[in-house]
C-alpha cells in the first residue's frame, strides 16, 4: 500500500537518506530500524509530509504523496505520532480526540457559525467516536482529564488514540515504546496488534530490538541513510551487515 522509491534527502551537503526503497503490504506491521542517525525519523518525516524529499517518490495506494503538506497527507489516510509527545497539552483527553477527527468532519465554517442541525448531529457522533477510541486504547474514564496531567505512558497511548481518530489506513509510530517500562511495553505491543486487527497498516520506528522483532512482519534496516537489509525479523537478525552495524565491529 505504501511504496517508497529511491527516497533521498539532502541537508546542505549531508545526504541523510540515500536512495531508500521499500514497500509496505496492506495489513502489515512494518519496522524501520537502524542505529542513531541512520535516517529513520527523517524517512518518517518525509512520508508524513514534514520534509519534502530531494528526489525519489512516495506512493500511497498508487497516488504520489511526496512533497504534499502534512494536513493533506492526513486527509489521504496517514496519521502519525511523535518521538517527543506532541499532544494539545492544555486540552482535555476528549478534546484531543475531537481535534484528531478534524479531517473526517465535514461541517465547515458557515454551519459552525449557524449551528445547523447537521453540525449538532456531527458533534454528537464525533464525541461518541472519541469515547469508543478511548475504550479501544484503554483510557476510558479519563476523557475530562487535561492531557498533560496524564502519566507519561498514557500520554503516548493518547497520542496513538488521537492518530486513530482520523481513521487512518496507515499509522506511523515514531518510537512508541521510548521511555516505557516493561509492563507498558507489553500493553503497547498488544495495542499495536489490536490496531492491525482493525485493518490498519502500521509503520514503526523503534530502538528497542526485542519489541520490534516481537511484533513486526517485515523490517527495513537503515545505516548512514542507506538501506542495508529488508526482510522478516528472522532474516534481518541473521544479516551480516546488520550485525556489524549494531555491534559496531569492522574497522
Amino acid at each position, binding site marked *: 500500500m505504501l511504496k517508497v522509491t529511491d527516497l533521498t534527502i539532502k541537508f546542505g551537503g549531508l545526504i541523510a537518506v540515500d536512495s531508500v526503497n521499500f514497500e509496505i503490504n496492506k495489513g502489515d506491521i512494518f519496522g524501520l530500524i537502524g542505529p542513531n542517525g541512520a535516517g529513520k525519523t527523517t524517512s518518517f518525516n518525509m512520508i508524513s509530509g514534514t520534509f519534502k524529499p530531494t528526489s525519489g517518490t512516495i506512493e500511497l495506494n498508487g497516488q504520489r504523496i511526496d512533497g504534499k503538506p502534512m494536513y493533506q497527507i492526513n486527509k489521504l489516510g496517514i*496519521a502519525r505520532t511523535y518521538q517527543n509527545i506532541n499532544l494539545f497539552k492544555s486540552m482535555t483527553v476528549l478534546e484531543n480526540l475531537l481535534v*484528531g477527527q478534524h479531517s473526517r468532519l465535514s461541517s465547515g*465554517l458557515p454551519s459552525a*457559525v449557524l449551528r445547523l442541525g447537521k453540525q449538532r448531529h*456531527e458533534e454528537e457522533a464525533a464525541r461518541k467516536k472519541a469515547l469508543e477510541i478511548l475504550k479501544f486504547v484503554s483510557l476510558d474514564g479519563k476523557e475530562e482529564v487535561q492531557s498533560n496531567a496524564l502519566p507519561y505512558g498514557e500520554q503516548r497511548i493518547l497520542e496513538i488514540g488521537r492518530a486513530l481518530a482520523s481513521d487512518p489506513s496507515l499509522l506511523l509510530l515514531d518510537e512508541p515504546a521510548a521511555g516505557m517500562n516493561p509492563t507498558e511495553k507489553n500493553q503497547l505491543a498488544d495495542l499495536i496488534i489490536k490496531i492491525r486487527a482493525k485493518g490498519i497498516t502500521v509503520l514503526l520506528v523503534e530502538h528497542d530490538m526485542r519489541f520490534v522483532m516481537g511484533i513486526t512482519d517485515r523490517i527495513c534496516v537503515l545505516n548512514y541513510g542507506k538501506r542495508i537489509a529488508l526482510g522478516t525479523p528472522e532474516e534481518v537478525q541473521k544479516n551480516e551487515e546488520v550485525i556489524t552495524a549494531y555491534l559496531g565491529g569492522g574497522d
Partner: protein
Amino acid sequence: MNMFISVLVGGLVLGCTYGMLSLGFSLIYQASGYMNFTQANLLMFGAFLAWQFYSEWKIPFIASMALAVVIMFFIGWMMERSIIRVLVAKKARNIYVVLSTIALSIIMENAAMLIWDARPHYFPPIFKDSAPVKLGTASVSKESILCIVVAICAMIALHFFLNKTKFGTSMRAAAQNKTAASCMGINVNRTIGITYGIAAALACLGGILVAPTLYVSYGLGSQFGAKSFAGAVIGGYGNIYGAIVGALIIGLLETFVSGYVSSAYKEFVVYGVLILVMIIKPSGIFNAKVYDE
C-alpha cells in the same frame, strides 16, 4: 453617585473598545506567535468605512456595521495571506514580521488620510431619539450602552466559537501545537489567516462602537493602540480572557483617574501600572507564558 455612574460607564465604554483590540493582539499572538501592530489602525479604518456607509451613503446602521465588519475581516485575512505569510515562509526573523505590521499600519493611516482627508469627521447619532437613558439619577447615552452590550455579545460569541465549534477547536489546536495540528489534517495557514480576519473584524467593531462618542479621523487608532496592547499584557499576553479583563482594567483606571484625580495623571497611572505588572507579575492576571524556557 451620578458622577460615579457616568465615570463607570465611560470606563466600560473605553475598556470595551480596548478589549476589542487587545483580543486581537492576544488571538494573533496565540495563533502565530507574532505581534501585530496594525490592530489600532484597523479600528480606525473600520470606523471610517462605517462612517462612509452610514453617514455618507445613508445605509441603515446595522447594515453599515455588518458591511464594515465583513470588509475588515477580508482586509485582515488578506494582510496575513499576502504579506505576513510570505515573510514567514521566507523564514524572516520575528522582528521583520513585526516591522512589516508597523509599516502596514502606517500605510493604512496614510491611506485613510488620502481617502477621507485629515479633518475629523462627525459620526451621526445611531438612535433617532437622542435622549439619554436614566440609570438611577445619572444619564447615560444610548450609544454608550450599545457599545458595552455589543462588545459583551462579541466576547461571548468569540468564546463559544473557540470552544464549541469544530473550527474554533481547530484554531485552538493550531495555536497550541502547529505540528500536531497539521498532522491531524488542520490547515494551519488557513486557521492563522482567519485569526487575522477575526482580529480585524473585532477591531472594526470597536471602532464603530466608539465612533459616535468620538470624532472619526485618521489619528483615531493612535489613542487606542498602546493602551489596548497594555491591556493584553496586564491580562496575560496571548490569553483572550486576560485580554478582556486587562483592557477593562485599563479603561476603568483611566477614566477613574481622570474623573476623581485629574486627567493630567491618567497616562502616568496607566503606564505606571503596566510597568509594575511587568516587573512584579509579568505573566499577567491569567498567567501567560512569558519567559523562554
